[in-house]
Protein backbone atom coordinates (compact mmCIF):
# COMPACT_ATOMS: atom_id res chain seq x y z
CA UNK A 1 0.00 0.00 0.00
CA UNK A 2 1.54 3.24 -1.16
CA UNK A 3 0.61 6.21 0.99
CA UNK A 4 1.27 8.75 -1.75
CA UNK A 5 -0.99 6.88 -4.16
CA UNK A 6 -3.77 6.79 -1.60
CA UNK A 7 -3.40 10.51 -0.91
CA UNK A 8 -3.49 11.33 -4.61
CA UNK A 9 -6.40 9.05 -5.37
CA UNK A 10 -8.36 10.25 -2.34
CA UNK A 11 -7.83 13.90 -3.21
CA UNK A 12 -8.80 13.49 -6.85
CA UNK A 13 -11.88 11.40 -6.17
CA UNK A 14 -12.87 13.54 -3.20
CA UNK A 15 -12.78 16.73 -5.25
CA UNK A 16 -14.97 15.27 -7.99
CA UNK A 17 -17.39 13.61 -5.54
CA UNK A 18 -17.68 16.99 -3.88
CA UNK A 19 -18.91 18.60 -7.08
CA UNK A 20 -21.49 15.89 -7.79
CA UNK A 21 -22.73 15.59 -4.21
CA UNK A 22 -22.97 19.32 -3.58
CA UNK A 23 -25.29 19.60 -6.54
CA UNK A 24 -27.55 16.89 -5.16
CA UNK A 25 -27.46 18.44 -1.68
CA UNK A 26 -28.18 21.94 -2.95
CA UNK A 27 -31.43 20.84 -4.56
CA UNK A 28 -32.49 18.79 -1.57
CA UNK A 29 -31.68 21.66 0.77
CA UNK A 30 -33.68 24.28 -1.09
CA UNK A 31 -36.57 22.41 -2.68
CA UNK A 32 -36.64 19.18 -0.61
CA UNK A 33 -36.40 17.13 -3.77
CA UNK A 34 -34.33 13.99 -3.92
CA UNK A 35 -33.40 14.18 -7.59
CA UNK A 36 -33.06 10.65 -8.92
CA UNK A 37 -32.16 12.03 -12.33
CA UNK A 38 -28.96 13.55 -10.91
CA UNK A 39 -26.86 10.71 -12.36
CA UNK A 40 -28.57 10.85 -15.75
CA UNK A 41 -27.86 14.59 -15.84
CA UNK A 42 -24.21 13.81 -15.08
CA UNK A 43 -24.21 11.57 -18.14
CA UNK A 44 -26.03 14.21 -20.16
CA UNK A 45 -23.19 16.63 -19.41
CA UNK A 46 -20.68 14.17 -20.88
CA UNK A 47 -22.76 13.70 -24.02
CA UNK A 48 -23.30 17.42 -24.52
CA UNK A 49 -19.55 18.01 -24.37
CA UNK A 50 -18.87 15.04 -26.65
CA UNK A 51 -21.42 16.33 -29.15
CA UNK A 52 -19.92 19.83 -29.10
CA UNK A 53 -16.46 18.35 -29.73
CA UNK A 54 -17.12 15.51 -32.18
CA UNK A 55 -20.80 15.61 -33.14
CA UNK A 56 -20.68 18.63 -35.41
CA UNK A 57 -19.54 21.96 -33.94
CA UNK A 58 -16.00 20.63 -33.51
CA UNK A 59 -15.12 22.73 -30.49
CA UNK A 60 -11.99 22.26 -28.41
CA UNK A 61 -12.39 20.65 -24.98
CA UNK A 62 -12.09 23.94 -23.13
CA UNK A 63 -14.63 25.66 -25.33
CA UNK A 64 -17.03 22.69 -25.19
CA UNK A 65 -16.79 22.72 -21.38
CA UNK A 66 -17.52 26.43 -21.16
CA UNK A 67 -20.41 26.25 -23.65
CA UNK A 68 -21.93 23.23 -21.86
CA UNK A 69 -22.31 25.00 -18.53
CA UNK A 70 -24.97 27.58 -19.51
CA UNK A 71 -26.76 24.85 -21.50
CA UNK A 72 -26.85 22.63 -18.43
CA UNK A 73 -28.10 25.53 -16.32
CA UNK A 74 -30.99 26.15 -18.71
CA UNK A 75 -31.86 22.44 -18.71
CA UNK A 76 -32.09 22.51 -14.91
CA UNK A 77 -34.26 25.62 -14.86
CA UNK A 78 -36.54 24.17 -17.54
CA UNK A 79 -36.90 20.85 -15.70
CA UNK A 80 -37.86 22.64 -12.50
CA UNK A 81 -40.48 24.80 -14.18
CA UNK A 82 -41.74 22.08 -16.50
CA UNK A 83 -41.99 18.94 -14.41
CA UNK A 84 -41.31 19.70 -10.73
CA UNK A 85 -43.30 22.87 -10.14
CA UNK A 86 -46.65 21.43 -11.28
CA UNK A 87 -46.23 18.62 -8.73
CA UNK A 88 -45.80 20.99 -5.84
CA UNK A 89 -49.45 22.00 -5.77
CA UNK A 90 -50.57 18.56 -4.66
CA UNK A 91 -50.33 16.59 -1.46
CA UNK A 92 -47.54 13.97 -1.29
CA UNK A 93 -45.64 15.86 -3.92
CA UNK A 94 -42.26 14.82 -2.54
CA UNK A 95 -42.93 11.14 -3.23
CA UNK A 96 -44.31 12.09 -6.63
CA UNK A 97 -41.17 14.12 -7.31
CA UNK A 98 -39.01 11.08 -6.58
CA UNK A 99 -41.03 8.99 -9.02
CA UNK A 100 -40.98 11.71 -11.66
CA UNK A 101 -37.24 12.28 -11.41
CA UNK A 102 -36.66 8.53 -11.51
CA UNK A 103 -38.76 8.41 -14.68
CA UNK A 104 -36.81 11.36 -16.04
CA UNK A 105 -33.56 9.46 -15.47
CA UNK A 106 -34.80 6.64 -17.72
CA UNK A 107 -36.11 9.08 -20.32
CA UNK A 108 -32.71 10.79 -20.49
CA UNK A 109 -30.86 7.47 -20.65
CA UNK A 110 -33.03 6.06 -23.40
CA UNK A 111 -33.02 9.34 -25.26
CA UNK A 112 -29.21 9.34 -25.23
CA UNK A 113 -29.15 5.72 -26.36
CA UNK A 114 -31.46 6.52 -29.27
CA UNK A 115 -29.44 9.56 -30.28
CA UNK A 116 -25.92 8.29 -29.74
CA UNK A 117 -26.24 4.49 -29.62
CA UNK A 118 -25.31 2.14 -26.78
CA UNK A 119 -21.56 2.22 -27.47
CA UNK A 120 -19.39 4.22 -25.09
CA UNK A 121 -17.90 7.51 -26.23
CA UNK A 122 -14.57 8.86 -25.14
CA UNK A 123 -13.15 12.28 -24.70
CA UNK A 124 -9.35 12.27 -24.52
CA UNK A 125 -7.67 13.85 -21.51
CA UNK A 126 -7.29 17.52 -22.20
CA UNK A 127 -3.78 17.69 -20.80
CA UNK A 128 -1.03 15.15 -21.42
CA UNK A 129 1.96 14.40 -19.30
CA UNK A 130 2.60 14.10 -15.62
CA UNK A 131 4.73 15.13 -12.70
CA UNK A 132 6.47 13.03 -10.12
CA UNK A 133 5.29 13.42 -6.52
CA UNK A 134 7.18 11.39 -3.93
CA UNK A 135 8.21 8.84 -6.54
CA UNK A 136 4.71 8.41 -7.95
CA UNK A 137 3.79 9.85 -11.31
CA UNK A 138 0.63 11.93 -11.25
CA UNK A 139 -0.96 12.92 -14.54
CA UNK A 140 -1.44 16.62 -15.12
CA UNK A 141 -5.00 15.73 -16.05
CA UNK A 142 -5.72 14.60 -12.49
CA UNK A 143 -4.17 17.73 -11.08
CA UNK A 144 -6.32 19.84 -13.42
CA UNK A 145 -9.35 17.79 -12.38
CA UNK A 146 -8.75 18.68 -8.73
CA UNK A 147 -8.10 22.31 -9.63
CA UNK A 148 -11.30 22.72 -11.64
CA UNK A 149 -13.40 20.85 -9.06
CA UNK A 150 -12.08 22.98 -6.21
CA UNK A 151 -12.72 26.10 -8.29
CA UNK A 152 -16.35 25.05 -8.91
CA UNK A 153 -16.91 24.34 -5.23
CA UNK A 154 -15.32 27.61 -4.13
CA UNK A 155 -17.39 29.55 -6.66
CA UNK A 156 -20.56 27.90 -5.41
CA UNK A 157 -19.71 28.66 -1.78
CA UNK A 158 -18.88 32.27 -2.60
CA UNK A 159 -22.10 32.60 -4.55
CA UNK A 160 -24.16 31.22 -1.65
CA UNK A 161 -22.41 33.23 1.03
CA UNK A 162 -21.78 36.56 -0.66
CA UNK A 163 -24.40 37.39 -3.27
CA UNK A 164 -27.99 38.54 -2.87
CA UNK A 165 -29.24 35.63 -5.00
CA UNK A 166 -27.07 33.20 -3.02
CA UNK A 167 -28.50 34.46 0.25
CA UNK A 168 -31.98 33.93 -1.13
CA UNK A 169 -31.09 30.29 -1.81
CA UNK A 170 -29.91 29.93 1.80
CA UNK A 171 -33.05 31.68 3.03
CA UNK A 172 -35.32 29.28 1.16
CA UNK A 173 -33.44 26.29 2.51
CA UNK A 174 -33.74 27.55 6.09
CA UNK A 175 -37.37 28.67 6.13
CA UNK A 176 -39.64 28.59 3.12
CA UNK A 177 -42.41 30.72 4.61
CA UNK A 178 -40.00 33.34 5.93
CA UNK A 179 -38.38 33.53 2.49
CA UNK A 180 -41.77 34.17 0.88
CA UNK A 181 -42.50 36.70 3.63
CA UNK A 182 -39.50 38.88 2.80
CA UNK A 183 -40.50 38.84 -0.85
CA UNK A 184 -38.20 36.15 -2.24
CA UNK A 185 -39.70 34.47 -5.29
CA UNK A 186 -39.33 30.89 -4.07
CA UNK A 187 -40.12 29.36 -7.46
CA UNK A 188 -37.26 31.29 -8.97
CA UNK A 189 -34.95 30.04 -6.22
CA UNK A 190 -36.02 26.43 -6.86
CA UNK A 191 -35.20 26.92 -10.55
CA UNK A 192 -31.86 28.52 -9.73
CA UNK A 193 -30.95 25.65 -7.38
CA UNK A 194 -31.78 22.94 -9.90
CA UNK A 195 -29.98 24.91 -12.63
CA UNK A 196 -26.81 25.13 -10.54
CA UNK A 197 -27.13 21.50 -9.52
CA UNK A 198 -27.29 20.34 -13.14
CA UNK A 199 -24.26 22.52 -13.93
CA UNK A 200 -22.30 20.85 -11.14
CA UNK A 201 -23.20 17.26 -11.96
CA UNK A 202 -22.92 17.85 -15.73
CA UNK A 203 -19.51 19.48 -15.28
CA UNK A 204 -18.37 16.43 -13.32
CA UNK A 205 -19.66 14.21 -16.11
CA UNK A 206 -17.55 16.12 -18.61
CA UNK A 207 -14.43 16.21 -16.46
CA UNK A 208 -14.56 12.49 -15.73
CA UNK A 209 -15.31 11.44 -19.32
CA UNK A 210 -11.63 10.77 -20.07
CA UNK A 211 -11.45 8.30 -17.13
CA UNK A 212 -14.78 6.50 -17.12
CA UNK A 213 -15.94 7.08 -20.72
CA UNK A 214 -19.48 8.11 -21.52
CA UNK A 215 -22.33 5.63 -21.75
CA UNK A 216 -26.10 6.13 -21.41
CA UNK A 217 -26.35 4.27 -18.09
CA UNK A 218 -23.02 5.50 -16.71
CA UNK A 219 -24.68 7.93 -14.30
CA UNK A 220 -26.05 5.44 -11.79
CA UNK A 221 -22.78 4.77 -10.03
CA UNK A 222 -21.95 8.46 -9.44
CA UNK A 223 -25.57 9.07 -8.41
CA UNK A 224 -25.47 6.27 -5.85
CA UNK A 225 -22.19 7.56 -4.49
CA UNK A 226 -23.46 11.13 -4.34
CA UNK A 227 -26.54 9.86 -2.53
CA UNK A 228 -24.47 8.11 0.14
CA UNK A 229 -22.23 11.19 0.48
CA UNK A 230 -25.20 13.51 0.91
CA UNK A 231 -26.87 11.34 3.55
CA UNK A 232 -23.54 10.85 5.30
CA UNK A 233 -22.79 14.58 5.27
CA UNK A 234 -26.30 15.49 6.35
CA UNK A 235 -29.20 16.08 4.00
CA UNK A 236 -29.33 19.67 2.87
CA UNK A 237 -25.89 20.70 4.09
CA UNK A 238 -23.49 21.57 1.29
CA UNK A 239 -20.58 21.84 3.76
CA UNK A 240 -21.49 18.41 5.12
CA UNK A 241 -21.48 17.01 1.60
CA UNK A 242 -18.05 18.50 1.03
CA UNK A 243 -16.62 16.95 4.18
CA UNK A 244 -18.28 13.59 3.54
CA UNK A 245 -17.01 13.52 -0.06
CA UNK A 246 -13.40 13.67 1.08
CA UNK A 247 -13.81 11.28 4.02
CA UNK A 248 -15.44 8.67 1.80
CA UNK A 249 -12.99 9.23 -1.06
CA UNK A 250 -10.04 8.55 1.23
CA UNK A 251 -11.82 5.54 2.67
CA UNK A 252 -12.38 4.30 -0.87
CA UNK A 253 -8.73 4.82 -1.77
CA UNK A 254 -7.60 2.86 1.29
CA UNK A 255 -10.06 0.03 0.72
CA UNK A 256 -9.25 -0.20 -2.99
CA UNK A 257 -5.51 -0.34 -2.27
CA UNK A 258 -5.73 -2.84 0.59
CA UNK A 259 -8.74 -5.09 -0.11
CA UNK A 260 -9.82 -4.47 -3.69
CA UNK A 261 -12.13 -2.23 -5.70
CA UNK A 262 -15.21 -4.42 -5.12
CA UNK A 263 -15.15 -3.52 -1.42
CA UNK A 264 -15.37 0.24 -1.79
CA UNK A 265 -19.16 0.52 -1.80
CA UNK A 266 -19.74 -1.99 1.03
CA UNK A 267 -17.20 -0.08 3.13
CA UNK A 268 -19.07 3.17 2.40
CA UNK A 269 -22.36 1.67 3.44
CA UNK A 270 -20.95 0.26 6.69
CA UNK A 271 -19.53 3.66 7.63
CA UNK A 272 -22.81 5.30 6.65
CA UNK A 273 -24.76 2.96 8.89
CA UNK A 274 -22.46 3.59 11.84
CA UNK A 275 -22.76 7.37 11.37
CA UNK A 276 -26.52 7.28 11.02
CA UNK A 277 -26.91 5.10 14.09
CA UNK A 278 -24.96 7.53 16.25
CA UNK A 279 -25.95 10.73 14.46
CA UNK A 280 -29.21 10.36 12.53
CA UNK A 281 -28.95 13.70 10.76
CA UNK A 282 -25.51 12.98 9.35
CA UNK A 283 -22.26 14.82 9.99
CA UNK A 284 -23.50 18.40 9.58
CA UNK A 285 -27.17 17.78 8.92
CA UNK A 286 -29.69 20.57 9.12
CA UNK A 287 -32.77 18.43 9.67
CA UNK A 288 -33.58 15.28 11.51
CA UNK A 289 -34.55 12.77 8.85
Amino acid at each position, binding site marked *: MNIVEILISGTTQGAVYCVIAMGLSLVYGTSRILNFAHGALYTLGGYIAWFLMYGGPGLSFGLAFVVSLPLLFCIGVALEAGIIRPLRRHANWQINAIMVTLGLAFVIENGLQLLFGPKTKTIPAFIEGGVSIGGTTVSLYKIALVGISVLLVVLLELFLARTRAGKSVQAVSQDLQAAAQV*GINVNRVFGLALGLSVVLTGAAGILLAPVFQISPTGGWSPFLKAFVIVVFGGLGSTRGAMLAAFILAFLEAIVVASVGPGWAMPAWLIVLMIVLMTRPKGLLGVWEN
Partner: protein
Amino acid sequence: MLEVDRINVSYGDFHVLHDVSLKVEKGEMVAVLGANGHGKSTLLKALCGLLPIQNGTVRYEGSDITRLASTELVQRGLVYVAEDRRLFRDMTVLDNLMLGAFNTRAWKCREKTLDQVFALYPRLEERRHQLCRHLSGGEAQMVALGRGLMSKPHLLVIDEPSLGLAPNLTAQMMETIHDLNRAGMTILLVEQNAALLTGHISRSYVIEEGVIAEGDLSAFGELQ
Protein backbone atom coordinates in the same frame (compact mmCIF):
# COMPACT_ATOMS: atom_id res chain seq x y z
CA MET B 1 -55.56 51.72 1.89
CA LEU B 2 -56.68 48.13 2.44
CA GLU B 3 -60.19 46.96 1.71
CA VAL B 4 -61.08 43.35 2.36
CA ASP B 5 -64.44 42.36 0.94
CA ARG B 6 -66.06 39.09 2.01
CA ILE B 7 -63.07 36.77 1.66
CA ASN B 8 -63.19 33.04 2.33
CA VAL B 9 -60.11 31.02 3.16
CA SER B 10 -59.69 27.31 3.83
CA TYR B 11 -56.85 25.24 5.23
CA GLY B 12 -57.23 22.02 3.27
CA ASP B 13 -60.83 20.94 3.90
CA PHE B 14 -61.22 23.20 6.88
CA HIS B 15 -63.11 26.41 6.07
CA VAL B 16 -61.45 28.95 8.36
CA LEU B 17 -62.61 32.42 7.30
CA HIS B 18 -66.23 33.12 6.38
CA ASP B 19 -67.00 36.27 4.38
CA VAL B 20 -64.51 38.37 6.29
CA SER B 21 -64.52 42.08 5.49
CA LEU B 22 -62.44 44.84 7.00
CA LYS B 23 -60.92 48.16 6.12
CA VAL B 24 -57.72 49.96 7.05
CA GLU B 25 -57.31 53.63 6.20
CA LYS B 26 -53.94 55.23 5.54
CA GLY B 27 -52.26 56.24 8.80
CA GLU B 28 -54.45 54.06 11.01
CA MET B 29 -53.39 51.45 13.51
CA VAL B 30 -56.08 48.78 13.39
CA ALA B 31 -56.27 45.67 15.55
CA VAL B 32 -58.04 42.38 14.98
CA LEU B 33 -58.83 40.75 18.28
CA GLY B 34 -59.75 37.17 18.89
CA ALA B 35 -58.89 34.09 20.85
CA ASN B 36 -56.47 31.45 19.59
CA GLY B 37 -57.66 29.31 16.72
CA HIS B 38 -60.34 31.70 15.49
CA GLY B 39 -58.57 32.58 12.26
CA LYS B 40 -56.53 35.69 13.09
CA SER B 41 -53.25 34.42 11.70
CA THR B 42 -54.99 32.83 8.72
CA LEU B 43 -56.52 36.19 7.90
CA LEU B 44 -53.19 38.01 7.98
CA LYS B 45 -51.38 35.34 5.99
CA ALA B 46 -54.09 35.35 3.35
CA LEU B 47 -53.91 39.15 3.05
CA CYS B 48 -50.14 38.98 2.61
CA GLY B 49 -50.24 36.37 -0.15
CA LEU B 50 -49.01 33.45 1.95
CA LEU B 51 -52.32 31.52 1.75
CA PRO B 52 -54.70 31.36 -1.20
CA ILE B 53 -58.03 33.19 -0.97
CA GLN B 54 -60.95 31.11 -2.29
CA ASN B 55 -63.28 34.01 -3.04
CA GLY B 56 -63.90 37.61 -2.18
CA THR B 57 -61.55 40.47 -3.02
CA VAL B 58 -58.71 42.33 -1.39
CA ARG B 59 -57.89 45.80 -2.62
CA TYR B 60 -54.67 47.53 -1.58
CA GLU B 61 -53.60 51.07 -2.54
CA GLY B 62 -56.34 51.11 -5.17
CA SER B 63 -55.69 47.81 -6.99
CA ASP B 64 -56.98 44.26 -6.68
CA ILE B 65 -54.34 42.08 -4.99
CA THR B 66 -56.50 39.04 -4.21
CA ARG B 67 -54.46 36.65 -6.34
CA LEU B 68 -51.02 38.25 -6.05
CA ALA B 69 -48.10 36.33 -4.53
CA SER B 70 -46.16 37.63 -1.54
CA THR B 71 -43.20 38.58 -3.75
CA GLU B 72 -45.30 41.17 -5.55
CA LEU B 73 -47.03 42.35 -2.36
CA VAL B 74 -43.76 42.97 -0.51
CA GLN B 75 -42.55 44.91 -3.53
CA ARG B 76 -45.63 47.10 -3.13
CA GLY B 77 -45.04 47.63 0.58
CA LEU B 78 -47.47 45.15 2.13
CA VAL B 79 -45.24 43.43 4.67
CA TYR B 80 -45.98 40.62 7.11
CA VAL B 81 -44.29 39.98 10.46
CA ALA B 82 -45.10 36.47 11.70
CA GLU B 83 -46.18 35.57 15.23
CA ASP B 84 -43.56 32.82 15.49
CA ARG B 85 -40.85 35.29 14.29
CA ARG B 86 -39.80 33.06 11.41
CA LEU B 87 -36.18 34.15 11.48
CA PHE B 88 -33.51 32.45 9.40
CA ARG B 89 -32.06 30.74 12.44
CA ASP B 90 -28.71 29.75 10.96
CA MET B 91 -27.99 33.21 9.64
CA THR B 92 -26.71 36.25 11.49
CA VAL B 93 -28.88 39.12 12.68
CA LEU B 94 -27.37 41.25 9.91
CA ASP B 95 -28.16 38.67 7.21
CA ASN B 96 -31.74 38.43 8.44
CA LEU B 97 -32.17 42.17 8.35
CA MET B 98 -30.59 42.44 4.90
CA LEU B 99 -32.90 39.74 3.56
CA GLY B 100 -35.76 41.91 4.77
CA ALA B 101 -34.62 44.40 2.15
CA PHE B 102 -34.74 41.74 -0.58
CA ASN B 103 -37.33 43.53 -2.70
CA THR B 104 -35.72 45.88 -5.22
CA ARG B 105 -37.47 48.96 -3.83
CA ALA B 106 -36.04 48.42 -0.35
CA TRP B 107 -32.69 47.05 -1.58
CA LYS B 108 -31.69 50.43 -3.03
CA CYS B 109 -31.79 52.15 0.36
CA ARG B 110 -30.90 49.17 2.58
CA GLU B 111 -27.91 50.80 4.30
CA LYS B 112 -29.98 53.80 5.31
CA THR B 113 -32.86 51.66 6.56
CA LEU B 114 -30.39 49.51 8.47
CA ASP B 115 -29.11 52.61 10.29
CA GLN B 116 -32.70 53.43 11.23
CA VAL B 117 -33.33 49.91 12.54
CA PHE B 118 -30.10 50.02 14.56
CA ALA B 119 -31.12 53.43 15.92
CA LEU B 120 -34.42 51.91 17.01
CA TYR B 121 -32.78 48.79 18.46
CA PRO B 122 -29.12 49.44 19.41
CA ARG B 123 -29.12 45.93 20.86
CA LEU B 124 -29.34 44.51 17.34
CA GLU B 125 -26.29 46.46 16.24
CA GLU B 126 -24.30 44.97 19.13
CA ARG B 127 -25.47 41.49 18.21
CA ARG B 128 -25.41 41.84 14.43
CA HIS B 129 -22.93 39.00 13.90
CA GLN B 130 -24.77 36.56 16.18
CA LEU B 131 -26.65 33.65 14.69
CA CYS B 132 -30.36 34.10 15.25
CA ARG B 133 -30.66 30.73 16.93
CA HIS B 134 -28.70 32.16 19.85
CA LEU B 135 -30.98 35.15 20.47
CA SER B 136 -33.35 35.57 23.40
CA GLY B 137 -37.09 35.81 22.74
CA GLY B 138 -37.06 39.58 23.07
CA GLU B 139 -34.11 39.98 20.71
CA ALA B 140 -35.70 37.60 18.21
CA GLN B 141 -38.83 39.73 18.20
CA MET B 142 -36.66 42.82 17.58
CA VAL B 143 -35.11 41.10 14.56
CA ALA B 144 -38.54 40.03 13.30
CA LEU B 145 -39.87 43.58 13.48
CA GLY B 146 -36.57 45.02 12.23
CA ARG B 147 -36.61 42.68 9.25
CA GLY B 148 -40.17 43.81 8.50
CA LEU B 149 -39.04 47.45 8.62
CA MET B 150 -36.13 46.65 6.28
CA SER B 151 -38.76 45.81 3.64
CA LYS B 152 -39.87 49.47 3.69
CA PRO B 153 -43.52 48.75 4.44
CA HIS B 154 -46.39 51.06 3.59
CA LEU B 155 -48.74 48.78 5.48
CA LEU B 156 -47.09 46.69 8.18
CA VAL B 157 -49.07 43.60 9.16
CA ILE B 158 -48.01 42.21 12.53
CA ASP B 159 -49.16 38.87 13.87
CA GLU B 160 -49.39 38.84 17.64
CA PRO B 161 -46.33 40.89 18.60
CA SER B 162 -46.69 40.03 22.29
CA LEU B 163 -46.49 36.28 21.82
CA GLY B 164 -43.82 34.71 23.99
CA LEU B 165 -42.54 38.01 25.41
CA ALA B 166 -42.19 38.90 29.09
CA PRO B 167 -44.85 41.43 30.25
CA ASN B 168 -42.43 44.38 30.52
CA LEU B 169 -41.24 43.69 26.95
CA THR B 170 -44.74 43.49 25.49
CA ALA B 171 -45.59 46.99 26.68
CA GLN B 172 -42.34 48.24 25.15
CA MET B 173 -43.04 46.43 21.90
CA MET B 174 -46.50 47.97 21.67
CA GLU B 175 -45.01 51.40 22.36
CA THR B 176 -42.48 50.90 19.55
CA ILE B 177 -45.22 49.85 17.14
CA HIS B 178 -47.31 52.86 18.15
CA ASP B 179 -44.29 55.12 17.52
CA LEU B 180 -43.95 53.69 14.02
CA ASN B 181 -47.62 54.44 13.48
CA ARG B 182 -47.23 58.01 14.78
CA ALA B 183 -44.35 58.43 12.34
CA GLY B 184 -46.76 57.69 9.49
CA MET B 185 -46.74 53.93 9.00
CA THR B 186 -50.13 52.24 8.61
CA ILE B 187 -50.41 49.18 10.83
CA LEU B 188 -52.71 46.18 11.01
CA LEU B 189 -52.09 43.80 13.87
CA VAL B 190 -53.75 40.92 15.63
CA GLU B 191 -53.64 40.30 19.35
CA GLN B 192 -55.38 38.10 21.82
CA ASN B 193 -54.33 40.22 24.75
CA ALA B 194 -56.71 43.17 24.35
CA ALA B 195 -55.48 44.97 27.46
CA LEU B 196 -52.14 45.63 25.76
CA LEU B 197 -53.77 47.69 23.04
CA THR B 198 -55.51 50.25 25.22
CA GLY B 199 -54.53 53.74 24.19
CA HIS B 200 -52.62 52.59 21.13
CA ILE B 201 -55.05 51.66 18.38
CA SER B 202 -57.41 53.66 16.15
CA ARG B 203 -60.03 50.96 15.66
CA SER B 204 -60.52 47.28 16.16
CA TYR B 205 -62.36 44.27 14.84
CA VAL B 206 -63.24 41.12 16.67
CA ILE B 207 -62.95 37.77 14.97
CA GLU B 208 -64.76 34.74 16.32
CA GLU B 209 -64.84 31.35 14.65
CA GLY B 210 -63.79 32.86 11.36
CA VAL B 211 -66.47 35.57 11.35
CA ILE B 212 -65.52 39.20 11.85
CA ALA B 213 -67.40 42.04 13.49
CA GLU B 214 -66.59 45.69 13.99
CA GLY B 215 -65.99 45.95 17.70
CA ASP B 216 -64.13 47.68 20.43
CA LEU B 217 -61.93 46.57 23.23
CA SER B 218 -64.70 46.49 25.83
CA ALA B 219 -66.84 44.26 23.61
CA PHE B 220 -63.93 41.89 23.33
CA GLY B 221 -63.59 41.90 27.09
CA GLU B 222 -67.17 40.69 27.39
CA LEU B 223 -66.53 37.95 24.83
CA GLN B 224 -63.81 36.55 27.01
